[in-house]
């Protein structure tokens, strides 16, 4: 390694350098001199030393208050006016520390779903928690209980420490209004809506969200007598919840897709739109509106339950479970029927029981995508 030339010696070796650069070279010793008090033998200009000094200054003054945190409160940097902020990293304004469910709130979710037998949909609306999170909470609390029953250790000190430091959504006391944890009715972005389509419509023709969905999915426009019946897109909700199979399909083969439904149908809680519309239409009849809402919810839940039961029954119809006494395992025996429909005319249809012969499995071929590439919303 060649010996390094120190900055000061460079300025000495090159007396012919231009005047503008001589200014810069003259400014270097001044920088060095500022840091020379602490680093006698170094000639390197070290601008970070100033920052370092400032850092320690800050740590001993304003920062000293952040050294120990108050349990139950976040310990983030405060705003300029001294107010509490939910952005722990001042240089990353896009990072927001979102609240997590408090211990009481998650236990309440589990209690309402499992003990009171309320539907996750209803609990989601009551507590202002996303339905997916409700499902996750129930599964995780279930898991935790199982761990407890097995006598396995839980990382409780860790959980407690984390809950002390991050913002949490508390469970409301009796008589208080439960604060919403997160927006619950967000519309998922459907890939079909990403396209920019120029679709001329005569001014005289009404063009609603239902029609827009049909245009996005390339479906022919609705017949007039059908579209006249739909006064508002949320009218479709009831029918579709009862019979999700009634959604129309367009396209063939791999390209087959269901017609995109209006946002009023695709949001997680479509019944809230209907409730809001009812409230606006009949502001005096609060009780009737609430009752109608409850009835609607009950109807939907009943339909969903029936559908789930039918699906389970269909699954179990051909399946028999056997638990031999001397075995650690149970066996699920499905009835396979070898017939022309099930195995094809030559007995080699892809849907025939068993793995197929003479067909290479391409699961190890390079470039084969093994994860699902599309999600049908």
């Amino acid at each position, binding site marked *: 390694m060649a010996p390094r030339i120190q900055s000061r010696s460079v300025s000495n070796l090159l007396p012919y350098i231009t005047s503008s650069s001589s200014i810069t070279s003259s400014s270097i010793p001044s920088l060095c001199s500022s840091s020379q008090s602490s680093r006698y033998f170094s000639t390197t200009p070290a601008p970070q030393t100033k920052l370092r000094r400032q850092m320690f200054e800050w740590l001993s003054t304003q920062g000293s208050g952040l050294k120990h945190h108050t349990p139950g409160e976040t310990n983030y940097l405060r705003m300029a006016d001294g107010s509490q902020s939910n952005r722990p990293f001042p240089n990353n304004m896009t990072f927001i520390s979102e609240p997590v469910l408090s211990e009481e709130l998650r236990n309440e979710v589990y209690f309402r779903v499992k003990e009171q037998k309320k539907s996750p949909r209803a609990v989601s609306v009551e507590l202002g928690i996303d339905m997916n999170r409700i499902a996750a909470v129930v599964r995780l609390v279930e898991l935790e209980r199982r761990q407890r029953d097995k006598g396995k250790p839980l990382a409780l000190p860790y959980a407690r420490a984390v809950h002390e430091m991050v913002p949490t959504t508390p469970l409301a006391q009796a008589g208080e209004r439960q604060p919403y944890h997160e927006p619950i009715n967000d519309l998922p972005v459907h890939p079909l809506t990403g396209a920019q389509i120029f679709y001329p419509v005569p001014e005289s023709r009404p063009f609603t969200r239902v029609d827009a969905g049909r245009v996005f999915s390339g479906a022919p426009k609705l017949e007039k007598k059908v579209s006249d019946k739909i006064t508002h897109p949320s009218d479709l909700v009831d029918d579709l919840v009862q019979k999700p199979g009634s959604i129309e399909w367009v396209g063939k083969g791999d390209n087959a897709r269901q017609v995109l439904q209006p946002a009023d149908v695709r949001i997680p809680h479509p019944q809230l739109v209907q409730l809001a519309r009812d409230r606006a239409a009949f502001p005096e009849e609060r009780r009737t509106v609430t009752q109608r809402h409850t009835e609607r919810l009950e109807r939907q839940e009943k339909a969903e339950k029936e559908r789930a039961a039918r699906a389970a029954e269909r699954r179990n119809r051909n399946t028999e479970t056997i638990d031999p006494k001397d075995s650690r*395992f149970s066996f*699920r025996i499905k*009835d396979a029927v070898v017939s022309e429909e099930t195995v094809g005319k030559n007995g080699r249809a892809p849907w025939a*029981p*068993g*793995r197929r012969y003479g067909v290479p499995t391409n699961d190890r071929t390079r470039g084969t995508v093994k994860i699902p590439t599309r999600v049908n919303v």
Partner: protein
Amino acid sequence: MVLRIRLARFGNKHQPFYNIVVAQARSARGSKPLEVIGTYNPLPAARTDVSDATSAPRAFKDITLDKVRAKYWLGVGAQASDPVWKLLNLVGRVDATNGLDGTGWMA
């Protein structure tokens, strides 16, 4: 030639999966059989549908079988290999002494 109801291994390393096949006894394991009458997955799958914390649910193994064809092949003199006998015994009670003539199938 003896007909045998036996298992034909599919799947990758450490991921066995069997077809229950009817084949000539002296043909290779991987050769094309006369008929595939079912499948057997020996890898136990944990049950995810039971949320009962008190009793640990047993893991299950999947069997599919065409009982009618199995009965037929046993009736015409096919001999089941030992592992297949065990599976057939689970599916329906088969008497090993007179199972081969087709009368031993009780289910």
